């Protein structure tokens, strides 16, 4: 039995073990019995000690976090194609972990009743299960182990904080760069450069016979030991030290220390007598440990697929969590995380451009707006971006715009893949309204500044925080120059911008109590972004624009600059700077805690100290709004 949907399910499953070992008709039959389940973010699939369901699960789309109940640290993330919740069904025991949707997720639930006979009948499937249960890896056949099989493991009683490095298999590069013994050294060096690797494997009859690293080239060629015209055989280190592919992080570290080498060659069975399946570098090990921004940065920069970037971003989130736990100053944290975010976006753009049919026809800049533009984006939130490209002759205008719109569409889609939600207001480079040439942008911004209605003020307040993430900085600074000149010509614009900044609803009521949302999906929640962060951000923008200060986008830094420019208000501005940092930190912690954007806060979940901290910032918000009222004479235009 089959139908269009079951065929679709089968088509997906056949790419992943153990389903790839099923006979065509077995797979069809199994797919027909599947239920497709939709799980919204943070909804629970099963919880600790729950009796096993009738199904086990395969992630079709999204991600599932497996964790010990009541802890915030996630033990493992199951991605597309990963199986979880199978062992308790086979062993007829209760679930050992809680499985929770880490984002919006679609699951295929496969009934154990239908699967078990197949597992017993099909030897390969049976072997897969036995091996995965025994080795505790989720997928022992895969060349890329991505974590332990926590969902079906029973020895997770060790402290989750240790991250179980001694048990976690490492992810290594399967993209082998190789050469033959008689390859010329120059060719070897070129191959290494093109592939951006620090080591190349020398292969003879499919077996690894030697390895050449950067160090070999330095020690043997530059010292004159081997002439530059020599061959790979002369420089390689031989024999190769090989290891089996089922290596854990700790084992890999030990192996490298023991032999004092930076690369391990992994082969089918761990001996040099079988073909190599991968190379593991010190870098790979460091990424797996994931507690070092420099390592993550390099991982991002050499990453060739957006899919892989997505998992690196999980590492970035772990880093962020660690920083907050250790109470590192938020300013430093936002610097580091923003750098990593920036690098990620840059890398996405690089990958996309490389895969485009043609190079960009003219110079362009990728502008990120909103929180990312202000370096205040710590969590994955919406993407707000725009494209600015060089002016072209009129007859080329359409063709050029089309190219950049297409580029924008692909980039925003890839950004979505790695976890940046689409902007609900379509403020993205894929939208013709946000993809312009320099002179078009000048026109648009002039229009906003000279006709400051509510929409124009809103648009400017979003756009004017732009920051160049990729491409030509000169184009952007020309645009900035134009904006400052226009603002000077139309001083009334600032008044309107200031009044826009006062439109945000107030955080507290008459009795200094929190004002919560009256209805909608977030009824009775406190809107931290709208009621507390936005007033501070908006005010900083107006004030800094009125001083014609370019290139400071970060709100806290803007207030610090203001403190410098207006010494008479120094203390007040420093209080504003402090408040914006405190609120950002507050939002980030809340967001990490609840795996969302941290925007809406359930007040009853806060403790007294947190509430007091929040309220303290409200006083500052009130004061900065009063300052805007007086300085820009808002009453005149409102009245």
């Amino acid at each position, binding site marked *: 039995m089959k139908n269009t*949907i079951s065929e*679709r399910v089968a088509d997906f499953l056949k790419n992943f073990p153990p389903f790839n070992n099923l006979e065509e008709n077995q797979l069809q039959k199994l797919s027909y019995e599947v239920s497709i389940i939709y799980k919204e973010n943070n909804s629970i699939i099963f919880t600790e000690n729950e009796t096993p369901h009738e199904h086990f699960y395969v992630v079709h789309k999204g991600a599932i976090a497996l964790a010990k109940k009541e802890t915030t640290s996630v033990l493992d993330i199951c991605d597309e194609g990963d199986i979880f919740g199978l062992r308790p069904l086979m062993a007829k025991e209760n679930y050992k972990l809680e499985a929770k949707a880490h984002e919006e997720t679609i699951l295929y639930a496969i009934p154990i009743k239908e699967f078990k006979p197949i597992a017993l009948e099909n030897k390969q499937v049976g072997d897969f299960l036995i091996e995965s249960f025994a080795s505790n890896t989720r997928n022992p056949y895969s060349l890329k182990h991505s974590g332990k099989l926590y969902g079906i493991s029973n020895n997770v009683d060790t402290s989750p904080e240790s991250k179980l490095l001694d048990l976690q298999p490492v992810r290594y590069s399967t993209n082998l760069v190789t050469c033959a013994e008689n390859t010329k050294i120059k060719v070897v060096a070129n191959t290494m450069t093109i592939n951006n690797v620090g080591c190349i494997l020398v292969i003879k009859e499919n077996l690894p016979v030697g390895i050449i690293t950067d160090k070999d080239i330095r020690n043997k060629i530059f010292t004159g030991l081997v002439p530059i015209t020599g061959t790979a055989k002369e420089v390689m280190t031989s024999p190769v030290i090989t290891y089996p592919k089922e290596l854990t992080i700790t084992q890999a570290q030990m192996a490298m220390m023991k032999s004092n080498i930076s690369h391990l060659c992994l082969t089918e069975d761990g001996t040099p007598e079988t073909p190599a399946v991968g190379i593991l570098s010190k870098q790979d090990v460091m990424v797996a440990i994931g507690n070092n921004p420099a390592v993550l940065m390099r991982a991002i920069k050499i990453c060739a697929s957006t899919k892989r970037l997505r998992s690196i971003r999980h590492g970035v989130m772990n880093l962020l969590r660690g920083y907050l736990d250790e109470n590192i100053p938020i300013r430093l944290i936002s610097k580091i995380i923003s750098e990593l975010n920036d690098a990620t976006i840059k890398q996405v753009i690089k990958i996309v451009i490389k895969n485009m049919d043609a190079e960009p026809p003219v110079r362009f800049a990728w502008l990120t707006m909103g929180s990312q533009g202000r370096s205040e984006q710590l969590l994955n939130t919406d993407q707000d971006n725009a494209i600015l490209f060089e002016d072209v002759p009129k007859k080329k205008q359409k063709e050029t715009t089309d190219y950049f719109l297409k580029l924008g569409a692909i980039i925003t889609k890839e950004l979505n893949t790695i976890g940046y939600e689409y902007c609900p207001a379509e403020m993205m480079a894929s939208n013709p309204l946000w993809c312009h040439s320099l002179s078009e942008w000048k026109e648009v911004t002039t229009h906003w500044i000279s006709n400051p209605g509510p929409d124009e003020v809103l648009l400017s307040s979003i756009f004017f925080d732009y920051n160049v993430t990729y491409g030509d900085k000169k184009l952007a600074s020309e645009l900035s120059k134009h904006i400052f000149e226009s603002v000077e010509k139309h001083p009334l614009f600032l008044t309107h911008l200031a009044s826009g900044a006062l439109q945000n609803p107030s955080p507290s009521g008459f009795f200094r109590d929190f004002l919560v949302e009256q209805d909608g*999906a977030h009824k009775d929640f406190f809107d931290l972004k709208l009621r507390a962060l936005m007033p501070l951000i908006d005010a900083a923008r107006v004030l800094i624009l009125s001083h014609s200060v370019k290139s400071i986008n970060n709100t806290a830094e803007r207030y610090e600059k203001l403190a410098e420019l207006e010494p008479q208000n120094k203390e007040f501005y420093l209080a504003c700077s402090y408040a914006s940092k405190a609120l950002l930190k507050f939002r980030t912690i809340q967001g990490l805690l609840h795996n969302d954007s941290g925007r809406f806060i359930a007040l009853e979940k806060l403790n007294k100290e947190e509430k007091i901290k929040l309220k303290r910032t409200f006083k500052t918000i009130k004061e900065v709004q009063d300052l805007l009222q007086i300085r820009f004479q808002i009453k005149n235009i409102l009245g």
Partner: protein
Amino acid sequence: MKLFQKKKQTDLPAFWKDYSNQFINKLPVNINENEFVIFDTETTGFSFDKDRILSIGAVKLINKNILVKKSFEVYISQTHYDSNSAEIHGILKKGNKECITEIEALEQFLTYIKNHVLVGHHVLFDIAMVNEALKRNGLPKLKNKTLDTGLLYKRTLLTTAVLQKKEQYSLDDLAEKFNISKKDRHTALGDAYITVIAFLAILDKLKPKSLVDLIKKQKPPKFGL
């Protein structure tokens, strides 16, 4: 009027009476207790009187759960046939799919949908096509409540002047927004699948309090303070 209908009821086939009797039961208030039937039709064209339904595909959604084997897919043998639209849908008049007659398809469809809410993308078109088919076979119109993912999707968008909304959003637009693979696009069941995933994502965004609330949300929001 009522008398007239009653009189006519007696002439109607048993499957219609079974279908009609389902509506004695009230629909549950809670969204998750409701069964939704997400469906799509492929037709020979857009004319209600000239064109015919080529196939109907549908899935049932119960508590955010879709059972693959409970999906519905029929192909209808054709008398009227327009070569233009067959190209879009890839269903040929004498394709290799097993075809049944229109009345058989309608009987199966009514038995499948019962009194559940019908969900579709621009659902009124599909409803109208089915109603025309019912009329041709001497049967009254469908009685089910309907939900249009096209209208509901618009409600998930921001109500701000900054965003220029399109008049209509196609199923392709939705598939792109929600990252749904467009495989099997333009087969009835394939489109029904895309629609159900989009519907689930929309529900997550709108968070309706009840079924009535969800049906109401199809209308544009009232402005005011």
